[in-house]
């Protein structure tokens, strides 16, 4: 990894410079919260943001996207053009960058999703360090740090950024648009101090993840799932705001004239009641308790059984979004409870 130091006042230069060849998006204020949106003026960019309602996955797998156009006369595909334009996303926190790498395992694995791939390849990632919020527990999974998966990473040292460069593209662009200087021993020491402070800033008890995958099997019939099922509204909000939930539905939409149409992919959730229903009506997860359980089972064990990582980055968005008060920390705590101490 290469490092540089950049004066904070230079950030607008970088944003303006990149605007010439990239669509620039980043966190902006919206009411008393933040959202990722297009940046027209560098002053809108809020790198001091807490977290966003929706994760940046919308820039890689949009809530709804056309996969292909088909014609009804010949009953075949007219076009399946993959569209992606150069875009830079500013301000991704380590959790969200880690989440993208977890998505890569799914969409760029044995089979490649050309739509995701095109967007991933045309998107530049500029990360930034953060301050843990009350719901954050990324430190439980080690996703509070990120060592790859970005182009440029900015660590806030007060009046300057400690800049990590992970790609040649990131290094080139930084070099082109901003004046930076070499890192001194003082800069590195300050970077270490900021990192230590960050590690000590997590609110609440550390999450006990000991033997979680095994516990999910051992306590598969635990009454805790019934209680969670009672509470859950099956609204799917947890999946929508999750940076690692990738499930989708595909539907055909006919044009008004009925001559052609689009095959459209939309976000879906395993919490929706018909998610696991097969054609003649059998529903493999008809109860909300089986669906809540499946979501955790898949994240903490199913995904891990393939990729050696849990499918959660501890961003806390699902806890904030849940109207029933279900939180991943609470679920894990409930599973850990009951054992001899």
């Amino acid at each position, binding site marked *: 990894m290469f490092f540089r130091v950049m004066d904070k006042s230079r950030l607008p230069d970088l944003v303006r410079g990149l605007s010439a060849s990239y669509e620039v998006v980043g966190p902006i204020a919206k009411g008393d919260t933040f959202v990722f949106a297009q940046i027209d003026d560098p002053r809108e960019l809020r790198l001091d943001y807490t977290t966003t309602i929706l994760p940046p996955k919308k820039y890689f797998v949009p809530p709804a996207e056309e*996969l*292909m156009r*088909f*014609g*009804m006369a*010949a*009953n*075949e*595909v007219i076009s*399946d053009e*993959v569209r992606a334009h150069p875009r830079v996303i500013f301000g991704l926190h380590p959790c969200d960058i880690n989440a993208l790498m977890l998505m890569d395992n*799914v*969409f760029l*694995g*044995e*089979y*490649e*999703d*050309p739509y995701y791939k095109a967007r991933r390849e045309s998107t530049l990632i500029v990360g930034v360090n953060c301050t843990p919020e009350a719901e954050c527990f990324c430190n439980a999974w080690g996703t509070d740090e990120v060592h790859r998966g970005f182009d440029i990473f900015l660590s806030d040292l007060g009046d300057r950024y400690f800049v990590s460069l992970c790609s040649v593209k990131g290094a080139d662009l930084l070099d082109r648009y901003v004046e930076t200087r070499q890192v001194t021993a003082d800069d590195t020491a300050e970077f270490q101090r900021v990192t230590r402070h960050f590690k000590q800033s997590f609110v609440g008890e550390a999450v006990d993840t000991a033997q979680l995958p095994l516990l999910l*099997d051992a306590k*598969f019939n635990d009454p805790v799932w019934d209680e969670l099922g009672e509470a859950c509204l099956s609204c799917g909000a947890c999946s929508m705001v999750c940076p690692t939930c*990738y*499930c*989708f*539905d*595909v*539907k*055909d939409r*006919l044009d008004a004239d*009925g001559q052609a*149409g689009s*095959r459209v992919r939309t976000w*879906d959730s*395993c919490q929706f009641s018909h*998610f*696991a*229903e*097969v*054609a*003649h009506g*059998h529903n*493999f*997860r008809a109860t909300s308790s*089986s669906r809540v359980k*499946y979501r955790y*089972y*898949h994240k903490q*064990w*199913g995904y891990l*059984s393939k990729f050696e990582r849990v499918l959660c980055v501890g961003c806390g968005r699902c806890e904030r979004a849940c109207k029933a008060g279900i939180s991943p920390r609470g679920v894990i705590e409930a599973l850990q409870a009951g054992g001899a101490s």
Partner: protein
Amino acid sequence: MSTDAYRSLHANPYRPWPARITSIRDLTEKEKLFELRLIDEDVRDAFHFAAGQFVEVSVFGVGEAPISISSAPSKGGFIELCVRNAGDVTGALHAKQCGDIIGLRGPFGRGFPFEQMKGHDVLLVAGGLGIAPLKSLINHIHDERYDFGNVTILLGARNPDEILFRAQFDMWKHRDDFNLVMTVDVPDDSWDGEVGLVTRLFDQLEIDPDNTFGAICGPPVMYRYVIDEMRKKRMDVDRIYVSFERRMKCGIGMCGHCGVGHQYACIDGPVFNYWEAMNLQEAI
């Protein structure tokens, strides 16, 4: 098909290839057998599959549905799909005529371990529409019959009218290289076969537990009981194979709909051995 061959042909794994319906046969009131031929020659040549794999069938304007292949891999150029009219896509498919064009993606998933099964006895148990994927395996064994020991097929259906491929199986009853037994829950006047659940047929079976592979497909409720019978006959858990029906929307391990336990039916299955299936929560 190897992943490389698949990749070169399918730069976009979501894009269906046009296939022509070359014949349609009514099997029962609800099921039809479609014979399809991929139109593009290169795609057709690269389309190799194993018994137990499935395809995604597209009827544009309606959507896609996963359907297991019923014909044998040894039948080049054509594939057969046994389709029950049970939903939007299968309903639209039933309305199609011979010569019409539909979309096809695949083949997907993991099929039966045909090569490992060679040299052994095979016991196949199908209930209802469960014969659809097993028919591919049965046909493949038929085409290479000399490589197998005793082959027993137990076929269950609700009533005689619902027995799929009945004309062919009626003829097979008289063959001595296949031990075929059919049973129905509710017989009619013409029925001279067995009556009752397929599990009842196990009493009369002689199975060599050291030398027998099992293959099961049927309605969700059936697996546990048939597996119990196979275990009573002391068959090994990793020689009993099951094929699961789940909602495989994408076929490539991304959409998440076919999750079964900690795996996906579309890429990890739909065929699992019983040891694997035992480890999949809520699978059986």
